[in-house]
């Protein structure tokens, strides 16, 4: 039992800190700190900085241009990025498609796409969910019908995050209606410039635009853009679901939110009093802090176990559930901490002389509402419970 980092890990941590102190532009970390929306250019700029250092594709092995880090090193990197308020890396190409191509793609596909992910030439988005296929993903109905050397794709995808910035989409499509629903699914790479594709924004509860619907009408996709065998896309879908859950616990984000909230609560108000001295507030904050401290260890325990066994087990569903509960609880308390001042609509947030609260708190209500997605997207917490009941508890 030894909960401290090894000397090597501590040296690694120092290296990350030094890099972030030098390379992370304040204009980006300020935006993250205050919850301001990052532009496409902001995200691309941060990707380019990381890529220049060789630290962009943290989960990739060295032969494909990754740094070859251990899970613990990746954890340290993510922790430090959060602490420094670095922008989050856009995961669709790097952490989702990349590993899929390395495992299931042809050499030609790997050579064509992996370097473009690193360079930023391609921005990928994800075409999984459909209006009728959410938790029950296997019921998806977007059809791809063979016509010579191409598939003709018709249907609709939804919840496509940051699709407005993307030039390519990877999709699960139905190539057969025979057998069980899982059996007729294939995995396609689609150029968003192809004729017949329309992307429409979905406005979320707090007013922001981060997800989209994608409509496919007679879109022609070369069969060489299929990854893996025809009708065997479900294997890839499961691989993605089970394999790449880096930072699923979101501990770094939770620590960030906790520190911001505690700092705010300690600030004396106009009448000299501090929110932290309100006993019920302090009790609620303590309860979350305790859960968060426990979560840090739970996360590390599973990380170290995964490092030893090579793959995360169904336990990662525990990280998803508890991790989202903690982040949502923090966002909830941060919203409540503002009292009536949480109400002004962020799109018209008061600034300057009329400001009600510090800038990094002004979006607390919007953040709270937006964070309700955490327990829904990426496999709802109900689905995670089903998985755990079956795979871990044997019920």
């Amino acid at each position: 039992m030894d909960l401290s980092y090894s000397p090597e890990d501590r040296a690694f941590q120092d290296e990350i800190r030094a890099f972030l102190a030098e390379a992370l532009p304040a204009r980006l970390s300020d935006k993250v700190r205050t919850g301001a929306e990052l532009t496409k250019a902001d995200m691309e700029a941060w990707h380019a900085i990381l890529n220049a250092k060789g630290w962009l594709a943290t989960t990739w092995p060295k032969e494909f241009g990754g740094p070859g880090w251990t899970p613990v090193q990746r954890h340290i990197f993510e922790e430090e990025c959060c602490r420094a308020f670095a922008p989050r890396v856009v995961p669709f190409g790097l952490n989702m498609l990349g590993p899929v191509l390395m495992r299931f793609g042809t050499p030609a596909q790997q050579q064509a796409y992996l370097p473009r992910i690193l360079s930023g030439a391609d921005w990928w988005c994800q075409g999984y969910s459909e209006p009728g296929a959410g938790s029950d993903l296997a019921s998806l109905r977007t059809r791809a019908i063979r016509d010579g050397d191409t598939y003709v794709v018709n249907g609709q995808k939804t919840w496509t995050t940051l699709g407005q910035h993307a030039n390519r989409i990877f999709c699960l499509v139905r190539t057969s209606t025979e057998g069980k629903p899982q059996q007729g699914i294939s995995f396609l790479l689609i150029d968003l410039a192809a004729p017949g594709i329309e992307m429409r924004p979905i406005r979320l509860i707090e007013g922001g635009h981060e997800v989209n619907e994608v409509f496919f009408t007679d879109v022609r996709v070369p069969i060489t853009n299929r990854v893996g065998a025809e009708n065997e896309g479900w294997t890839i879908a499961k691989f993605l679901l089970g394999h790449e859950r880096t930072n699923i616990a979101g501990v770094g984000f939770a620590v960030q939110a906790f520190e911001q909230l505690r700092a705010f609560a300690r600030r004396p108000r106009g009448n000299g009093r501090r929110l932290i001295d309100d006993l019920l507030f302090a009790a609620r904050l303590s309860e979350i802090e305790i859960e968060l401290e426990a979560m840090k260890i739970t996360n590390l325990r599973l990380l170290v176990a995964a490092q030893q066994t090579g793959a995360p087990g169904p336990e990662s569903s525990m990280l998803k559930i508890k991790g989202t509960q903690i982040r949502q609880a923090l966002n909830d308390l941060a919203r409540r901490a503002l009292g009536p001042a949480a109400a002004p609509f962020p799109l018209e947030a008061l600034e300057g002389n009329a400001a009600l609260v510090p800038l990094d708190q002004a979006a607390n209500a919007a953040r709270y509402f937006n964070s309700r997605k955490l327990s829904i997207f990426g496999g709802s917490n109900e689905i995670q419970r089903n998985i755990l009941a079956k795979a871990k508890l044997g019920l």
Partner: protein
Amino acid sequence: MDFEPSDDRRVLADTLTRFLAAEYPIAHRNAVAYAAPYHDPDKWARLSDLGLLYALAPEAQGGMGGAGFDIATVFQPLGAALCPEPVLAALLSARLLVAAGHDLDPLLSGRTRYAAAIGEIDAPYDPAEITCAAQGGATGWTLHGRKSVVYGGGTADRLLVAARASEAVGLFEVASEAVEITAYGMIDGGGAAEVFLDATPAALLLPDAEATLHDALDHGALALCAEAVGAMDTAQALLLDHLRTRQQFGQPIGSFQALQHRMVDLTIEIEQARSITILAASRMGAEQQSRTVSMAKSHIGRTAKLVAEELIQLHGGIGMTWEHPAAHYAKRLVMIDHQLGDTDFHLQRVMAGYRGA
């Protein structure tokens, strides 16, 4: 013992429910609730013509109601329809003007719009903490300071302002033109404002207004509870409809036992919230008014948030979208806890009741 509304109140509730259903379909509601002036002035006039505001004041002062159950009768349908009109501002103002012996008809008829400017950034809920200052002089009173998140403050003609003169907190009236007002919308719809008082000339209505302010805030809190009950009823109906119709894994998701049990627990909490709101309404004007209202508001703060969160969660992604009514009900249900005292503020008022012998 009787839990049925009186005939008068039933007629008022039915009239209001029909009007709101016809005039505030969710698309229209959202259109007016999220863009300046954050309500619909035209429909506000028509609501006033229905006599709505008269239900908020006692007969002795020219109204036609004013009891706890009258307020609940008005606000429950408003909540069920997510109506963004500044009726809360009118209610608070009416209670203050009644105490000041002021003529209420301009307010109750809807001709003059009032807003109550009580809360401040560092005195969000408790009038005892007010720091805005009133100074008396040869030419009358002037007010100094800032009032925050004044509901309906952006569209009011007159403001009723609580400010401290030497020891006591007094109640003053000022004309909106005389102050600097920054109006804005709220995340759950409807409008509020920052009010900047800079040697603003004011008329003194009540020299020692603390009890009056508490009473008005109690009535406002009751109104918010009733509004929440109405909104929770609609939320529950939306959710049940979704559970019965949304298919996943080849069956309606309402057939999954884990969701059924959560829906049952939610239903029980909503019924409890309705009950404590009824109790609070029955105690308005009685000895236990403040403590009972605080019980209700504390319960509602917790329950409305639970309903909002389950409303989104059980809807899944669609409940996160601006397009779906669920998102807007969820926002209102959560943000009610930010008005006139949140669940812990009111819990502490309930706890204070233990301190005595």
